[in-house]
Each structure stands twice: as structure tokens, then as C-alpha cells.
């Protein structure tokens, strides 16, 4: 484990691995930019962006908007509900707080397939088998993680600042909106984008909650398109995949520096 330069065989092995890891992407791009794509790895025969224009119009465009709606809605509900509860949770001394936090940690482990049937049943009975139902269900499943993360962020806001503001006559609302929220801006952004990508990538809940094709997000649409029997339009699907994957990948590289905080946000501090 000492600091060494890589030996030659090791470097070759790593390069080989990197090639294996990226070759599916090479395939994806070569097909996406080839308007006569056949699903083979060849240099594009008919180079063009026709596949992309096809993948943002019509049905595909509507799916994009559906995904956007579900992801942004879930992220906003999660952050608003989470932040409203995380601030009191961070500042209040209440009996059973540790037990509550541990419950949240355990709930964070809860696999969504474990509560799939009751979720579906509840949504069906309350008429929520639609996009709003998907947002609500995803926020519900997200909330334990969101709460813990936001509580950890609020814990780091120095309470002395709040005291000083109080002495100067600020109300609770002014303290929260003027000090606490601005100081945890980075944390709120991380949580929002985490929930956004999570909901953007989500497949299972939209699959069972979407009753009509008009409500399909991109994940369900892509599944439907390549699972279908018959000729597969590789060019279109490759372009569609790139458009679908771009926000999830982009957000990560945008927030890369802040991500570590979220990564470690599983611990409990009483």
C-alpha cells in the first residue's frame, strides 16, 4: 500500500479494464449518431443527428416532460417536507429523539419492494395511480434519508448566529429564512439533486403506477421500446438513452465536490 508508480503489467490490466468499461458507451454513441444504425459497432455510416431530433419530439418528448415532472416534483416535496422537520429535529431536545433517529436509519434500509404491495393498494384506493402518486410514494420512501441528511446539515449551522439574531429581535421565521437556510444552501442543493436523480432513474413505481401511456416517464418508455418484439430501432433507442442518461450523469459531475457529504450521511449523531 505504499506510494508507488504502477508496474507495466498493472497499467496494461487497468487500461484493458477501462476499455471494457467504456466499450458499451462507444457502441451507444456510434449508433446514436448513425441514422442507419444496425446495432453493430461500426463508424457511423450515415452520420447525422436525426436520431436525436426524433428522440425529443412526439411521444419521446412527452416522456421527457413526464420524467422531469416526476423528478422535480419528488425532489421539491422531499426537500420542503424534509427541511421543515429537520430543523426542529436538529434544535429541539425531546424525549425519544435518539430512538426516532435510529428508526429513520432502519427505515432508510427498507427496500421499496418490501412495501410495494401496500403502496400500490393505498394508491389504488385513494385514486393516486398517477404521477402525483409516484411523487408522493417516492418522497415517502426518500424521506428517512432526506431527514437524516438535512438534520446533519442543520447541525453544522452555528447556533451562536441564531442567538445573536434573536437578541437583535429576529423572529423564528426570520432566523430560519435569513440564517439557517442560506447557510445550508449547499446541503439543500445536494439533497434536492439526489432526490431528483433518484426519481429520474426510478423504474418500478412508475411501471406499476402508470395506467396510461401518456403518463409514462422515460424509464418505462425505454423499457417498453426495447422489450418489444420485432425490429429494434437501435439508432433511436441509443439517442433516447443518451438524452435520458444525460441529466443523471450531468448532475453528478456538477455537484461532485459536494457529493461526499451526502455519501457519508448515514451516521447518527445524537
Amino acid at each position, binding site marked *: 500500500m505504499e506510494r508507488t508508480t504502477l508496474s507495466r503489467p498493472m497499467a496494461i490490466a487497468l487500461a484493458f479494464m477501462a476499455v471494457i468499461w467504456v466499450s458499451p458507451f462507444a457502441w451507444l454513441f456510434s449508433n446514436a449518431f448513425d441514422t442507419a444504425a444496425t446495432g453493430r459497432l461500426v463508424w457511423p455510416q450515415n452520420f447525422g443527428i436525426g436520431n436525436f431530433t426524433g428522440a425529443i419530439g412526439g411521444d419521446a418528448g412527452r416522456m421527457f416532460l413526464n420524467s422531469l415532472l416526476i423528478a422535480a416534483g419528488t425532489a421539491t416535496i422531499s426537500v420542503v*417536507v424534509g427541511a421543515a422537520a429537520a430543523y426542529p429535529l436538529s434544535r429541539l431536545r425531546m424525549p425519544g429523539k435518539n430512538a426516532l433517529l435510529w428508526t429513520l436509519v432502519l427505515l432508510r434500509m427498507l427496500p421499496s419492494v*418490501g412495501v410495494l*404491495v401496500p403502496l400500490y393498494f393505498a394508491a389504488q384506493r385513494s385514486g393516486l395511480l398517477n404521477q402525483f402518486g409516484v411523487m408522493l410514494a417516492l418522497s415517502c420512501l426518500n424521506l428517512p434519508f432526506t431527514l437524516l441528511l438535512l438534520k446533519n446539515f442543520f447541525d453544522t449551522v452555528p447556533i451562536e448566529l441564531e442567538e445573536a439574531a*434573536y437578541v437583535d429581535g429576529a423572529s423564528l421565521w426570520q432566523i430560519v429564512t435569513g440564517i439557517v437556510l442560506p447557510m445550508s444552501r449547499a446541503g439543500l442543493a445536494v439533497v434536492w439533486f439526489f432526490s431528483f436523480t433518484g426519481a429520474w432513474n426510478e423504474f418500478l413505481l412508475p411501471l406499476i403506477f402508470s395506467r396510461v401511456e401518456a403518463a409514462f416517464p422515460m424509464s418505462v418508455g425505454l423499457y417498453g421500446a426495447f422489450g418489444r418484439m420485432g425490429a429494434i430501432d437501435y439508432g433511436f433507442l441509443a439517442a433516447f438513452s443518451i438524452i435520458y442518461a444525460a441529466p443523471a450523469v450531468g448532475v453528478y459531475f456538477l455537484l461532485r465536490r459536494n457529493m461526499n457529504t451526502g455519501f457519508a450521511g448515514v451516521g447518527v449523531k445524537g
Partner: protein
Amino acid sequence: MRHQANPWITSNLWLLSAAMLPAIILVGALLFFTGWAVTFSFTDLGLTGRKAVEWSWVGLENYERLFTRKGFLESLWTTVIFVFFSAIVGQSVLGFLLAATLRGTVSTTRSVVEICIMLGWLLPDIVAAFLWSATTSQTGLINSLFVVPFGLKPINFINDFALPVVTLANIWKGTAWSYLLFVAALDSVPREIIEAAKIDGATRWQRAWLVVLPIIRPHIATNLLFITIWTFTYFPLIFAMTGGGPGRQTETLALFLYNQSFARGNLGFGSAISVAMLLIVGALSTVYLRMLREPK
């Protein structure tokens, strides 16, 4: 640490409680759903038809079915194989080896490999499934690069080697998480301790096995805990690639649950499967958490 009473908090207790209410309702709903899954598992509730309205209590019948009918135990075995090879052997070991090799190497090699494995991880599940279905199809990348040039007939990998293909796809997709965690873990090992072991004459192997591994054991346990639970309940990748087939070769528990509940409409039996899954996940967590706490 915190002051006993912050006046702006104590004078607004009602407001703060009201602010917590939506979260309490949602977390309560989550707990309630878990309880509901248990309740459903004792009924013959159906997705559609008469059983959706006039369900009745069936006692332990659903649980008996888990062990007496074909399906559950086979799925459990498939899941165990999938978790063991893709999460524990694949992601964890590969992630650790990569983290250990790339430690302290030139930054370009490192960032190229990091970006490569991160891309797989960041990709939506369904895109990964599409990529791997296309790559392993009869006209796909692997056949045209490694099989056909050697004069062999193209192989329909997804049909003939379904479980290995989804296992590989999951390793490809998930290694980044273990890698990142192990990079952080190895960074937390104090340099002085390794230097001291070196001076005392420990070989490279002894340093890794006797010095580094015991220090990062909590990280190993955390990693195993998370990836085991995730992989155990992982649904989209396999579902989109094979749908559980061919036959039932790749029907892991998550797919079995889905198929029983939503394709066949047995919500009661589906609930029994989900309760069994929750129990297994709970048991695994306990084992790993004990590993985490054990004195060094």
C-alpha cells in the same frame, strides 16, 4: 453542547411541531405500510376480480406456500447466487482491488478509470439494461468482436448464459460505489502505522492482511451491508434484461414478488414474499452490524 433552552425555539413549539407534521405523516405511512404488508400476507387479497373486494383471512397458508410450492426457494437460491457473485465477489472485491492499486498513482490513470466506472454507476438502470441487452445480443458487440472473428457461430448470450450476463452487468454498473467507499477507507489508514509495520519487517502481504484490513473492517462491514441489501432487492436491471427468464433462471426474489403480485395478481402471496424478504434483509443487517461493532 446545545444550550438547554433557545428562546426562539421554546416560544414557537407549536409552530415547529406543525412544521414536523407532514414528515411525521409520511414516515408514519411508511411504518404503516410495513405493518400492512404483514397483515396482507395472512389474506388471499387479489389484484383484480372478486378477491380484490371479498378477500378473506387464510392464516398461514401463504407462508406454507412459500416452502411447499415451487418458486420461492428456487428464487431465493438464484438471489443468493446473484448477490454473492455480483455484489460480494464482483463489486466489493473488484472495488477494493481497484482502490488499493490506484492509491497514490498518477492522477490521469486514476481519473480515467474513475470516470469509466462512475459512468456505469450514474447511468439509469434501464439504460444499462438496454446497453447490455444490445451488447450481448447475437449481432452485438461481444459476438462481433470475440466470437464471429474466430469463425464461431454467434452466441445468444442473454438466452444461453442469462445469469452470468446479468451478474456481469450488475458488476459493471455497481462497482463504483464500493470503489469510492474503499478509497475513503484506505485514506483513513494512518501512514505512520504502515511505516512502523514496514520498519518492523512486515511483508507487503502481512501489512495488508494484519494492519490495513483490521483498521478498515468497519468500512468493509458498511459496504457489505449496503450492497447486499441493494442487490438482494434490486429489480430494474434484471427485469428489463430478461424478465426473469429464460424459464425462471434469473427470477430473483424481487422479480418473483413482482410477478406473483402484479402479473398473477396474488397480492396476499406477494405480501408474504415481501415479508420474507424484509426478514432476510433484517437478519443480514444484524449480522453485518455485529461485525461493525465487534471490538478490534
